[in-house]
């Protein structure tokens, strides 16, 4: 306004209200503005013609119609709970499948509001039966790893999938017959991938597809080929065997591709079912958890196993077998052992198993197959199947690949998943060779060594929970891999990239997989597809057992000729890692913090050696060793492991990743650098001390149950008995109970008891005879209960947070001890020492007998922790959940609160699961929760079915029945804490001849 504002002289009397300063000043512009009905611009439209109006309206309708053009719908189906009844806040479960080395395990993944949060085994899948291993439990954390590969890169610069597609369109045109095309992938049993592979082979007949896995099972297939003339995968029915002989075979642990062997084996260890207990003989170098379960364990070097197998064969009088003296290990002690084993095997024909591990050369597998055949086990306890993966010589394959690359013959190299630059043996330098290819493309899950080495294209790989696929179990039974979430970082699966290589019309995983199965199903395709997704396993896809018969004489002669003499001096052998497997889960904090079952080492690997070898080399724990083999040298700290074979060093793969996320960077020591294609599984080595020191951190020292200073054994922590004594007396630990418990008359309690005459009273039973100590429960508990990870330094300070831990005790001599595992979580004492000492009543008894932990009330005096005889309470010494990356927060279980610092926490029998089922029972109008309806996280995952939870008020419940078993006992019973968790005593089943 240019004019001066004047007070309107014609104003009326009384209070004056004005709309604006213009109004107040009563300017002409204001008068005009008031007079106009439509303001400026309001009638602009009127200026246009009728045609314009119609044009605009037509365009409007057109745009409205566009919304109908949606992306094609890819439906995934929930496993058990229909989307129909989806209730927010309640999880939905989907069946899917993951594979390791081609062996599938069916899973059921819990999804909370679209976030996969918890992995369970699929009870319907033949290789899960409801259980998983620790690695599979940790898959959800891999999914939300903030350090995953996040973008397509070309020459290190951000690019896109469409640019990559355009590039390949152009590049593939120049390939012709594909002589310059190479693909390096991991072993897979996916039928769809096999079909895509066939397409590639059809389009590029001269292309080469190489498969390589750092941890593989090739030698077993080769061994079968040696024996039977064709590669076959052996399946062992451990539940049918009275005698099991494992030769360098950690079949309960890391030498198994699935948890099925544990399921089967443990069936013969839970003796309350009236079954006789099986007897397990183990000959091994490293002290594995299988060795821990052994009734008789022979310490034998990996390179001596061949001689041992032959000696056993000879003892068994397998036709043509002769004892070749290989190496110097056939001492008289071994001879007695072999004789006793052979005698027992001969007496249990058709009911025994001899099995060799994947480190053993093909010849040993052949000898073992022949032994099983001679014992009549084949067809009874041992069956053979066509392998679900291609039995190619992968080491020769990668060697050839490197040679091709170096010769410059390769135009395009595709690395589809895995991390070959890190995992390949030292004599195959893929990182350098890759640069010689005209273009190399790396599909990687995280920004790993292979990703870093890729000169041309880097592609982010989708997590198994993000992509469609399929896979076969070892018996051929197929499952569809169903995604649970859109790829977080736009990754694609190896299958999809392979389809792109093949130039298929659609490279969408969903369509590819559906097409594969639709072509087999025909008309009923849609229904069957839905069933497949729902069940998690496709019916009728198992392959029949192959009736394998070997010409024993010929095969044995070939095998004997192929057996190399044992290495003189010290050998090194390579084992998968209980933490990272082959390094693929090296950035997974849950796994790194889960202590190795035997060494209890966290956030590290070490050179494991026996006390005698340590003395021989003059090294102590933490001394850095220089290990040299085949001209390569690595430096690894030594760790003395009681029970390890002498003159043998065990090295764990999968550590010391150079390019890894922020969690796994620089954790541990890379031992892959010592592997060569010639000595891939074990090698002769020169070992010496470097003089340097390294700090190894364990959650548990090598304390045995024998006290230092006094030399007395603590008898009321782990109870053991021989099976013979047990079956004779039929009493187990009852004698003990009489001696210490009821025998003293009424126990005196300071505080009045609780009334449990109504409702539930929870209890847990853990069978020490079944528990193998595999860590699955620990990682499952971590996932279920949002348990924080504290890191190596804090574990060193004794601040690990695991609610359930696996106590490992050695018994016997330091050189050749036995081991026993004891899962230890809150015992939920009836007379709880923690409850009475808490000044603010933050831990108090629930009406159902649990020691509830009220986080909000806790002030953190730690008095309860001090007074807990089991030391199972965990204190948040620092704010462990500070700086959790946003994406990692998606892994939290919404049913469990995340605890702040200064607060005590502990196991509460998965209270959230109890409440969930209580609500369910109520909503279904049931009065009682059914027995085994509630599964605690540890119970659900346990492949050995060693943990049983339930209502002990109900005498018919499984847990109540187990607690009536004569083997039932209480840890440190004399304290009168009356725990609700009780244990079933460990039984040993020694051969009287060897005792």
């Amino acid at each position: 306004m240019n004019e001066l504002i004047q007070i309107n002289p014609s104003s009326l009397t009384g209070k004056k209200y004005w709309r604006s300063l213009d109004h107040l000043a009563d300017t002409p512009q204001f008068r005009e503005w008031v007079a106009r009905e439509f303001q400026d611009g309001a009638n602009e439209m009127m200026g246009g013609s009728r045609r314009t109006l119609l044009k605009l309206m037509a365009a409007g309708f057109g745009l409205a119609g566009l919304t109908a053009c949606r992306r094609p719908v890819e439906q995934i189906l929930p496993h058990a709970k229909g989307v129909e009844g989806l209730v927010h806040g309640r999880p939905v479960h989907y069946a899917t499948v993951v594979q390791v080395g081609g062996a599938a395990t069916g899973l059921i993944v819990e999804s909370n509001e679209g976030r996969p949060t918890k992995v369970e085994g699929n009870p319907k899948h033949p290789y899960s039966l409801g259980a998983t291993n620790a690695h599979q439990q940790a898959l959800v954390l891999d999914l939300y790893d903030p350090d995953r590969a996040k973008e397509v890169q070309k020459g290190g610069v951000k690019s896109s999938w469409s640019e990559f597609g355009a590039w390949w369109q152009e590049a593939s045109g120049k390939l012709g017959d594909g002589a310059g095309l190479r693909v390096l992938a991991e072993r897979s049993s996916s039928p769809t991938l096999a079909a895509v592979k066939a397409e590639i082979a059809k389009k590029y007949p001269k292309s080469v597809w190489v498969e390589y896995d750092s941890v593989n099972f090739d030698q077993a297939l080769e061994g079968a080929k040696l024996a039977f003339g064709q590669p076959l995968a052996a399946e062992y029915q451990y539940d049918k065997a009275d005698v099991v002989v494992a030769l360098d075979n950690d079949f309960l642990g890391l030498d198994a591709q699935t948890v099925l062997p544990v399921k089967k084996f443990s069936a013969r260890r839970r003796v309350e079912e009236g079954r006789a207990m099986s007897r397990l003989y183990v000959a091994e170098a490293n002290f594995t958890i299988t060795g821990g379960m052994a009734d008789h364990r022979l310490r034998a070097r990996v390179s001596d196993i061949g001689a041992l197998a032959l000696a056993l064969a000879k003892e068994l009088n397998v036709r043509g077998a002769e004892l070749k003296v290989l190496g110097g290990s056939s001492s008289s002690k071994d001879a007695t052992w072999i004789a006793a084993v052979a005698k027992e095997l001969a007496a249990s024909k058709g009911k025994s198993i001899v099995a060799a591990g994947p480190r053993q050369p093909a010849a040993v597998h052949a000898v073992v197959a022949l032994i099983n055949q001679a014992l009549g086990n084949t067809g009874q306890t041992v069956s053979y199947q066509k392998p679900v993966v291609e039995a190619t010589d992968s080491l020769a394959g990668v060697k050839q690949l490197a040679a091709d690359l170096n010769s410059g013959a390769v135009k395009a190299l595709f690395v589809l998943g895995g991390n070959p630059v890190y995992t390949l043996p030292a004599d195959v330098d893929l990182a350098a060779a890759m640069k010689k290819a005209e273009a190399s493309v790396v599909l990687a899950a995280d920004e790993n060594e292979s990703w870093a080495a890729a000169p041309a294209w880097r592609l982010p790989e989708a997590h198994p929970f993000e992509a469609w696929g399929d896979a076969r179990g070892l018996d051929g039974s197929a499952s569809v891999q169903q995604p649970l979430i859109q790829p977080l970082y736009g990754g694609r699966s190896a299958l999809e990239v392979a389809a792109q290589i093949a130039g298929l019309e659609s490279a969408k995983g969903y369509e590819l997989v559906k097409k594969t199965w639709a072509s087999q199903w025909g008309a009923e395709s849609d229904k069957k597809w839905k069933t497949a997704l729902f069940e998690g396993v496709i019916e009728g896809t198992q392959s029949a057992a192959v009736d394998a018969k070997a010409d024993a004489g010929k095969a044995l002669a070939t095998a004997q000729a192929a057996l190399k003499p044992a290495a003189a001096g010290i050998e090194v052998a390579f084992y998968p890692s209980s933490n990272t497997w082959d390094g693929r889960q090296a950035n997974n904090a849950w796994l790194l913090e889960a202590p190795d079952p035997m060494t209890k080492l966290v956030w590290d690997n070490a050179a494991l050696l026996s006390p005698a070898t340590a003395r021989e080399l003059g090294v102590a724990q933490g001394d850095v060793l220089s290990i040299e083999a085949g001209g390569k040298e690595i430096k690894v700290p030594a760790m003395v492991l009681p029970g390890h074979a002498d003159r043998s060093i065990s090295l764990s793969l999968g550590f010391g990743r150079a390019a890894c996320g922020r969690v796994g960077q620089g954790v541990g020591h890379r031992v892959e650098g010592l592997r060569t294609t010639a000595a891939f599984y074990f090698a002769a080595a020169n070992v010496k001390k470097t003089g340097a020191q390294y700090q190894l951190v364990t959650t548990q020292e090598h304390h045995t149950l024998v006290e230092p200073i006094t030399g007395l054994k603590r008898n009321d922590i782990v109870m053991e008995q021989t099976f013979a004594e047990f079956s004779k007396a039929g009493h187990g630990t009852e004698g003990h109970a009489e001696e210490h418990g009821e025998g003293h008359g009424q126990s005196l309690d300071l505080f009045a008891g609780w009334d449990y005459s109504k409702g539930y009273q929870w209890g847990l039973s853990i069978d020490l005879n079944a528990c193998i100590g595999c860590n699955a429960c620990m990682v499952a508990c971590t996932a279920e209960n949002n348990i924080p990870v504290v890191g190596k330094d804090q574990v060193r300070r004794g601040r690990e947070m695991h609610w359930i831990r696996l106590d490992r005790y050695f018994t016997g001599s330091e050189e050749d001890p036995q081991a026993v595992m004891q899962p230890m979580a809150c015992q939920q004492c009836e007379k709880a020492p923690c409850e009475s000492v808490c000044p603010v009543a933050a831990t108090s008894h629930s009406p159902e007998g649990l020691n509830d932990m009220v986080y909000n009330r806790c002030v953190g005096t730690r008095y309860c922790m001090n007074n807990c005889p089991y030391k199972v309470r965990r204190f948040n010494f620092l704010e462990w959940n500070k700086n959790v990356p946003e994406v990692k927060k998606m892994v939290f279980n919404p049913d469990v609160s995340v605890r702040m610092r200064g607060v005590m926490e502990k196991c509460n029998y998965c209270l959230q699961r109890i409440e969930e089922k209580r609500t369910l029972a109520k909503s279904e109008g049931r009065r009682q929760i059914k027995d085994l309806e509630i599964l605690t996280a540890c119970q659900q995952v346990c492949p050995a079915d060693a943990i049983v939870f339930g209502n002990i008020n109900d005498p018919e419940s499984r847990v109540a029945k187990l607690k009536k078993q004569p083997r039932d006992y209480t840890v440190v019973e004399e304290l009168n804490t009356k725990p609700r968790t009780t244990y079933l005593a460990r039984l040993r089943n020694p051969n009287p001849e060897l005792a």
Partner: protein
Amino acid sequence: MADLAIDPRTELNPPLVTGGATYSSVTDQISAITEGKPPKQWYVVMGVAIPLAMMLFGCLAYLVANGIGVWGNNSPVGWGWDITNFVWWIGIGHAGTLISAILFLFRQKWRTSINRAAEAMTLFAVACAGIYPLFHTGRPWRAIYWLFPMPNELLTMWQNFRSPLMWDVFAVSTYATVSALFWFVGLVPDLATLRDRATNPVRKTIFGILSLGWRGSASQWRHYELAYLILAGLSTPLVLSVHSIVSFDFATSLMPGWHTTIFPPYFVAGAVFSGFAMVVTLMTLARWVYGLENLITIKHLENMCKVMLATGTIVGFAYGTEFFIAWYSANQYERFIFLNRAFGPYAWAYWTMISCNVIAPQFFWFKKFRTSIPAMFTLSIFINIGMWFERFVIIATSLHRDFLPSSWGYFQPTWVDIGTFVGTMGLFLTLFLLFLRFLPAIAISEVKGVLHHQINTEKGVAH
């Protein structure tokens, strides 16, 4: 030198105040300390004490900001230096109460020169001790009000009265309150003296308010004496109860090495032992700084050495009894925990404790050591160290190897642990020096009481 003129009673009861002190000289000497400028040594010690006290506050702030993890505490050793320091400081306080209350009831006149300072020491020690139970909790901002039975919205959430820690809260807060009252009541006549001597109006006003209108009339004295006697009577059971209850923190638990019925008397004896050691340490220093040789005589100090000898021997006997009972109980865990103390990873701490607490006081059998200032000062330091280690041994060695060998561990302090502990010493020293500077460190009126008795004795007048 044998002087036949000496009254045999004097030989048995050497004078409690020497140097021919008179009523006015006592008043002058003690009051002058608070009126004039402090000696150079005072500034030197204060220059050390204040930064240390600042360090305490720094460490506590760091602790609260980050969590207990900045200390060395772990699983299984949930309590480390925190509770060790707490028990140690509480123990130190005990000598003050013992001297002022029990010795008062037993009419031990020699207490007069040292009771005021000893009571102040009690208060400051309890203040230092009180820091730990609060700050050792994971969430002190919650502990500060949840540990007291304050009404909450539903009036249903109570403390757990079964917990010895709860008893501790009441025992220590009662102790602090009664000690403060007792100390203050004792101060009233002396504050009036200071008021009357004051020339500065500010000083006059402050002491005027603090002396609560004390005029020194006979009726005031009568009430005063009665109040003092009642408070002494109230304090006396506290000497026994506070440390008994502190010992319940351990004794009522089920940890081997803690779960022991001997703890209450053993803790009380230990507390008196360490308290007297601290009084000797401080008195020898104060005596030297302020030249109070005539008021705090060798006789006082010698008596305290005798108390240390007695309580030290009780403590030593308790150590032996613990071992005997561990063996006699035939309980494997008990036996192990005691052998582990002596021969396990913490053997160094155990033997430090034995040398300082059992061997060191034995020197006090000899009069030469009981009457030598350097000797008793050195030995008192050893006893202070030994008693700290006693608590550390009880707490750390019992926890670090308990029932399941799988959870065994080891405790190592961090710099924050050390900083906090040394910091509380700084706080204690600061408070004590401020007390010396501003309040009569020796009870003027009480000393005059024994002076009267002594003047008469010296004159040979029967009383």
